[in-house]
Every structure is written in structure tokens, then in C-alpha cells.
């Protein structure tokens, strides 16, 4: 199975969350569901465009490889190694989110304090671990390049959306 599809899906979901975070803390209104949704869509759009860079790099690596089949297998192995730590991270985020929305306020505070807050902070660490996973799983330098680009892209969506639309308080 190619890890490309789950990686793209993960990247796009992360971009939507990044869009939401770029907007969060810039609008003090109480009712802002629509604005939250718009911010998430902006993140999704920006993420989709930026994620083209690692995707095109991977395609370029395959097209220029002496042995495309072998290059594909190496990238696929790297992709799987990259996906595994991110899946663990994404599962922790989803569980924290579910706990936050479903549980009463005391338990939701717990989900925020030990879950969502620290998990936002360790996003660069999650990307670094994913890159390491790509290397350890036999992805080689090519996977590292693509993985590092994808990670940098994911981390840059929030500041990009923030700078473009939410630099000023509304």
C-alpha cells in the first residue's frame, strides 16, 4: 500500500487545523463558528498549495531516478516510516479533541492541559520524529528531503495564513 494517500490526507487535515489556529486569538467575538470554518478552509487551501512542493519533489525524484521502481520502493518505505509517528501524534490529538468536546468542563480542562496544549507545542518535534522514522525505515536521503519539505510546509501553513488574513485583531 502506498503511504502517499494517508500522508496527503493527514497533511490537509493538519492544514485545516493550522488555519483555525492562525485565526484563534484574533477575534474576541463570542459567536464565530462561521469565521472558524472560514479560517479552517483558508488553512486547507494554503496547505493544499504548499503541499504541492513536496509532492512535486517526490515526482521529480521518481522521474529522474535511474531505477524508478527501486526509487519508488525506497520512497514508499520512507513514507511508511514517516507516517507511523505522525499517526501516533494524530491519534493523540484526535483523542484529546474528542475528550475536550465530549467530556464535562473539568475533564475537558484535563484534555486541554495534558493533551491539546502540549501537542501544539511539540509539532516540530513530531515532524522531526517523522523524518527520523523515514530514515530508519530505509527511506534514504530522498525520503528525508521529501519528508523535511512536507514537515516544513505543514509548519508554515499557520504563520502563512496568520500573516495573510489574521495579522490584526478584528
Amino acid at each position, binding site marked *: 500500500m502506498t503511504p502517499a494517500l494517508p500522508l496527503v490526507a493527514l497533511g490537509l487535515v493538519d492544514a485545516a487545523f493550522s488555519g483555525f489556529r492562525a485565526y*484563534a*486569538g*484574533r*477575534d*474576541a*467575538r*463570542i*459567536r464565530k463558528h462561521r469565521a472558524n470554518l472560514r479560517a479552517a478552509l483558508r488553512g486547507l487551501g494554503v496547505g493544499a498549495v504548499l503541499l504541492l512542493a513536496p509532492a512535486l519533489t517526490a515526482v521529480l525524484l521518481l522521474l529522474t531516478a535511474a531505477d524508478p521502481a527501486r526509487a519508488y520502493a525506497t520512497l514508499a518505505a520512507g513514507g511508511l516510516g514517516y507516517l507511523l509517528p505522525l499517526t501516533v501524534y494524530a491519534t493523540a490529538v484526535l483523542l484529546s479533541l474528542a475528550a475536550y468536546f465530549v467530556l464535562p*468542563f*473539568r*475533564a*475537558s*480542562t*484535563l484534555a*486541554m*492541559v*495534558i493533551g*491539546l*496544549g*502540549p501537542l*501544539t*507545542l511539540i509539532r516540530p518535534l513530531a515532524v522531526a520524529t517523522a523524518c527520523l522514522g523515514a530514515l530508519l525505515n530505509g527511506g534514504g536521503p530522498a525520503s528525508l528531503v521529501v519528508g523535511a519539505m512536507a514537515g516544513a510546509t505543514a509548519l508554515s501553513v499557520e504563520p502563512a495564513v*496568520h500573516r495573510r488574513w489574521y495579522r490584526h*485583531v478584528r
Partner: protein
Amino acid sequence: MPELEISDLITAVDPDNGRRLPVRRAAVVEQLRANGDGRAARLVAGLPADQDGVLDPGAVDRLLISVHTELQRLSEELRIGERLVHLLGPLLTAIRAAGHAGPYRLVDIGCGLGYLVRWLAATNALGPDVELVGVDLDAALVGEADRLAHAEGLRCRFVHGNAFALPEAATVYVSTGVLHHFSEPALTEFFRAQADSPALAFCHYDIAATGLAPIGAWMFHRARMRHPLGRHDGVASARRAHSDESLLRAAAAASGMRPLLYEPRRAANPFCTTLRPVLGVRPHLEVPLRQALGRTSRRLLGPEQFAQAAR
């Protein structure tokens, strides 16, 4: 040395007439340096000032509105509104049950951008017989709170000035994240002023002074706040937070009010209780309040129960 918050130092108001006073940047920088806080001093040194070295009031207002808007995000994420309603709901039930006729007036002291008041107005969580008023000494924050309330058509109002000099008496005084700004003697005076007013109760939430609080504050402000001032003051707030003992001691000096702590350190999980309140209720309201709280009233401790729990 006591922790200093930058936002406390870069604005000054004449307490008698609420008028803004000029703040000299060099004086604030010097004060922060003398307090051993070089990072905060550098932040203030970077703020715009005029040729006389007086901080630009417009720039300071914009900065504080921006930082408070980010701060509101923390209140939203930690569901501060629900946390307050959990206690204010039963408190108002007790007031109604004790035969005090409405309408009731809830006054939020040091409301800032008025998140709590606006959230209560938007959700109507306390009922239509509760008038919601936010008061703050900072004109810019109150003005922004008012603008936001009007933009959403919320039934609440905001007043620039002293919460104890309002033309109409409060039924209940509340606040969130204000108490740590006071020294213990000032805190005693603060509670006393409420006990001397016709108010039936007060309920002030502030950061729970636990060992985890400064670490949690650092992490959250790092993850959620963009401006370094917000990050700095967030951690300083947690370090300045009053202990359960000092809150209860100060509240006990307000004669005519029964001092109570809800979810103090020994009765709550510190991971679940980032903010906890100190209450003062007229003595005849304690029994109906406990009845309205039901099983959770065991988390409500008076000085004697608190001392017993400490043993």
C-alpha cells in the same frame, strides 16, 4: 522579589477620576531591571514613546487589546464561562430561594474585554432576571468590550471606572484573573469593600496556586499567545497567584460575609482546576447555596473545614 506584570506598568490611571496618566518608558524599564527581569525590560524598551519618553498611549492600547484578545482564547479553551456558571447558577438559585427579589445585578470587576459578561449574555446562562455589567479602569479595554457587545447585539453593558462607585448596587461581584494583581493587604481591602456594599455575595476566580501553575502557564502561553508580552505576563500571573490560605485569610477579614473556597488544592485535581474561586456569601445564603450545589457542595470549604482538611 515580587513578580511584575508588564501590562500593570505600562498604563496608569488616576483612581479618583479614571483619567489616564502619562507613563515614562525609562521609569518602567528601570523598575523591571531593578526587579531582575531583563527580558521584560527589553520588551518595554521596544515600545513606542514620544520625544519626552512617554509611552504612546494609542500603541499601548492597541497592544493591550491584542494581548487580551489572545488571552480570551485561553478562557474559551478552558471553558471559563461554564466553570463560572457551575457555581454562579447555584449561587443565584440560593439568592432567589432566600427570598431576595430580582432583578439581580452581576458586576464583573476588572472585566477587560468583558469575555465572561458577553459569554453569559450570549448564552443567557444565568436567566433573564440577571443584569450583566462589566467594569474596568482601563478605558480602551472597556470601549472594546462595549464595541464587541454591540456588534453581536448582546444584552449587557460596560462601564469605565470604579466597580464600587456604580450608581446601582451589585447583587454579586465576580472577577476572573484579577486577584493576583493585589497584594495581600490590598486584597483584604478589596473583599472588605464588597462586604461593606449591599452585595449579597462575591465570587472571584483566579489562578490556582499549585506547583504546576507556572509550568502550565508557560506551556499554554507559549502555545497560544503570539506576543511576548502576553507570554511574559501569563507566567508572571501564575507565579503571583495567591495561595488558598492567603485568599481565605483575606476574605475572612470581610466581616458580614462568610468566606468560602471552592475546589481548593486538597479538594481538586490540579490538572482539572486551573482557576478556582474564593467566595463570600451573606451568612444566611450558605445553606441554600450548599443545597443548590448538591453533592458538589463538599468541594466548598469554609475556614474551619479548610483547617481540618489541612491537618
